[in-house]
């Protein structure tokens, strides 16, 4: 109905009207106050000069503060030094910036100019010339007549990067022995010690509901302690044995005390947050949640596998010791972790 009506109208008048509107041409902006009145122009000039002056004063303050306000020994003096230097620098820079922009906006001509554009494509003659030049070059080199040179040359060029890449790749990954991922420094008899003090832990130190961040007692004797620590850190939790539904590896705990790897099986963050009531361990990086009371199984989040469990027992002096290494690789999944 209404459609027919209007298309009809459009058709009837098509003869008299062009298909599209015409461009009315460049619309020059209205004159500014400073264009019309020299008084306003003078005022703008004074404003610009004032802004430059702010910058100059800023530099003087900055130099003064550099000498007069050293960072000193206390957090207060450090903060003061930073704020004064920062604000002075702000004045220096904003003074110049605002002055120039204000100048450009009020005092420089705001007449718009029109420039022609030309197509990016080069014209046919240039293109033909370019192709000719390439052909001439190829012909002069004789490459099409001497096929053996082409093959040999390309092969040499293709092989040459090996001399740079091989030593780089060869050395950059140390010994490339990736099976190191699968072992930690826990051995039979290694004492469990508090992180970071290294003091060994007695089973009797732990009350029910308590948690300890644990390292191997001999960690500092390792060749690269940080690398070893990155794999070996353990969380020790003592629970009421009645609350302990299951263990990851049955029998690995001792009297309600269970030791689980602290390295998340998702991408390796330390699983550091323990919620005493629910027995849940939460990784603060991506919120994988493990149930310590139930074999450290994943109850929420992006991790798939439970945390590996460290087998522990008590030695003759009552200290907690490992009965051996973890029985599976700790930390994030990698391709060959089960091989």
């Amino acid at each position, binding site marked *: 109905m209404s459609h027919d009506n209007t298309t009809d109208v459009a058709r009837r008048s098509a003869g008299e009207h062009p298909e*599209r509107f015409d461009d009315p041409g460049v619309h020059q902006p209205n004159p500014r106050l400073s264009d019309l009145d020299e008084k306003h122009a003078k005022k703008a000039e004074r404003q610009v000069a004032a802004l430059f002056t702010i910058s100059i004063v800023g530099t003087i303050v900055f130099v003064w503060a550099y000498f007069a306000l050293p960072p000193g020994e206390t957090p207060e003096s450090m903060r003061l030094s930073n704020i004064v230097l*920062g604000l002075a620098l702000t004045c220096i820079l904003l003074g110049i910036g605002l002055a120039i922009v204000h*100048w450009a906006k009020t005092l420089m001509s705001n007449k718009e100019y029109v420039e022609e554009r030309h197509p990016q494509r080069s014209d046919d003659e240039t293109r033909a010339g370019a192709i000719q030049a390439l052909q001439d070059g190829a012909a002069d080199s004789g490459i099409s007549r001497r096929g053996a040179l082409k093959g040999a040359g390309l092969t040499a060029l293709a092989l040459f990067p090996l001399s740079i890449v091989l030593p780089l790749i060869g050395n950059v990954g140390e010994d490339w022995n990736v099976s190191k991922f699968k072992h930690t420094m826990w051995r039979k008899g290694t004492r469990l010690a508090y992180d970071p003090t290294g003091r060994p832990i007695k089973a009797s130190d732990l009350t029910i509901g308590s948690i300890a961040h644990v*390292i191997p007692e001999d960690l500092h004797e390792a060749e690269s302690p940080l690398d070893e620590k990155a794999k070996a850190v353990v969380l020790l939790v003592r629970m009421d044995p009645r609350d302990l539904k299951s263990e990851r590896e049955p029998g690995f705990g001792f009297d309600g005390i269970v030791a689980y790897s602290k390295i998340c099986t998702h991408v*390796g963050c330390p699983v550091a947050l323990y919620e005493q009531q629910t027995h849940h361990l939460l990784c603060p990086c991506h919120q994988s949640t493990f149930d310590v009371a139930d074999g450290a199984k994943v109850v929420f989040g992006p991790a798939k596998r439970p945390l590996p469990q460290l087998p522990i027992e008590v030695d003759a002096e009552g200290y907690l010791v490992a009965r051996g290494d973890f029985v599976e690789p700790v930390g994030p999944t990698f391709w060959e972790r089960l091989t």
Partner: protein
Amino acid sequence: MTTTTSSPTGAARAASATADYLDQRTGIGHAVKYFARKVFPDHWSFMLGEIALYSFVTLILSGIFLTMFFVPSMGETHYEGPWPSLNGVEMSEAFSSTLRLSFEVRGGLLMRQIHHWAALIFMASIVVHMMRVFFTGAFRKPREINWVVGFVLLILGLAAGFSGYSLPDDVLSGNGLRITDGVVKAIPIIGSYTSYFIFGGEFPGHDLIPRLFTVHILLVPGLILALIGLHLVLMVMHKHTQYPGSGRSDKNVVGYPALPVYVARLGGNFFLVFGIIALLAGTMSINPVWNYGPYDPSPVSAGAQPDWYMLFLEGALRLMPGGAEFVIGQYTVPLNVIIPAMVVPGILFTLLALYPFIEAFATGDDREHHVLDRPRNRPFRTAFGVSLLMAFFILVLAGSNDLIATHFHLSINDITWTFRVLLFVAPWLAFVITKRICLGLQRKDRELVLHGHETGRIVRFASGEYIEVHKPLDAHERWLRVQHEAIRPLEIEPAEDSRGVRRKGYRRDTMRRRLSELFYEDRVEPVTPAELAAAQAHGHGAHEAVEAGHGPRELASSAPGGGQHLVDPHDETAPEGRNHTV
């Protein structure tokens, strides 16, 4: 030196002698003549790219300062200095030199904070600049290559940022590196070796900080500098795009000459950007590594977030359910890491990088475009861009789900589940709503062109009828609303030629047609002179013309309100003279 001569003629003579000296040796006259009055279009949104450029200059200036005092070493040392809580603590030289340059070097803390704030602003301005380019269609021919250059700059910016904030070797960035290690190890077959490649052995090793340092101060900035050069050369070669408006076409460029206005604004803007960064750095603390402590693989702080531009990766990792990991034979494939850390960003970035080519394929347009689109006039593109941003935004929020939980006292599990659903739902919703808004705005444009501005003046006719007087648009106002072309879906040749032989490439053409329909099926055509004349001539019937010219899937909805009369302001004292029907 020579310009300090007291007499102005002396200074002029010295300047001309210098110019002559240079020109005889370099022929620089050509370049000066070409560039000095070259025209640049003006619009505030063209400054967004400038902000990126200037924050990069700020990064280089402050970065040079920092390299003088930073020690890129993982060698162990014990801190002795004015920060009491860390005295005697074992840490790497990288961390201890960061503390020294923050607390003992005069102006060092300011420079460090300038550097970090500038990095955040650098990335933010790249993203916003890219949004401007995307939504206005500035990536169309001949600028597709420059879009790709800009895209690579975005990726390099991410690399620069990540390699930079990991350098202090604090516990926050160290855990970020540990996550990186976990993600790298997830790559099938070569993951473990790639981890060794990066860390020079097992994580964290002793090589990483020096390697990151080289990446951060040489490799990445070198590449960024080279690509910025290419980006700008291409911009000058293409001449800048311009917004639509009177007198602006694909064949010209309208704007201010380089000298003096454009150069002044460029220079002024550098100081403004640097100044704002200095203000942030002077008054707001950023990355206070002394509160986090040196890296140690055991502790981790709750509420730990990376810099904002890495949050989307963090968010993707958090949202992915863990069940996706599986074992094939003896080998483990952790899809719960591969999908969020590689597949999701892979999809987002591939779509972003290839968009100009996809759109060109759907449009089938081989012309050069120098006049920008108003986003409303390209509903599919605008809606697509908004939905891509929405997905990014959801991931960014998901990367802060723990902060949302603690600030609003919500369950982290509920938040995570909400975002899991939203990641799939919100982009679609955003797409549909944005497209409707665009089409609505285009109809509003038609309405304005056909009926003019409402004046709020009510006139009563002799017959007793009331109408509102409308003021027609002037030629410049109208041109802005009718200058664009509504692109129609491609039509393809039939499957068989005149002799009934099935032609080659028909399937590809069909796919292309479908894509083209997806892009351009829904559209609102700009008002034509005939329609305007009809609207003016027909009084009552005119409002229906607002709905004319849309595509097949556009349903006509009757215009709200009653009849509207267009009254020429010069003629408004005699409304009876208008051709109105009752």
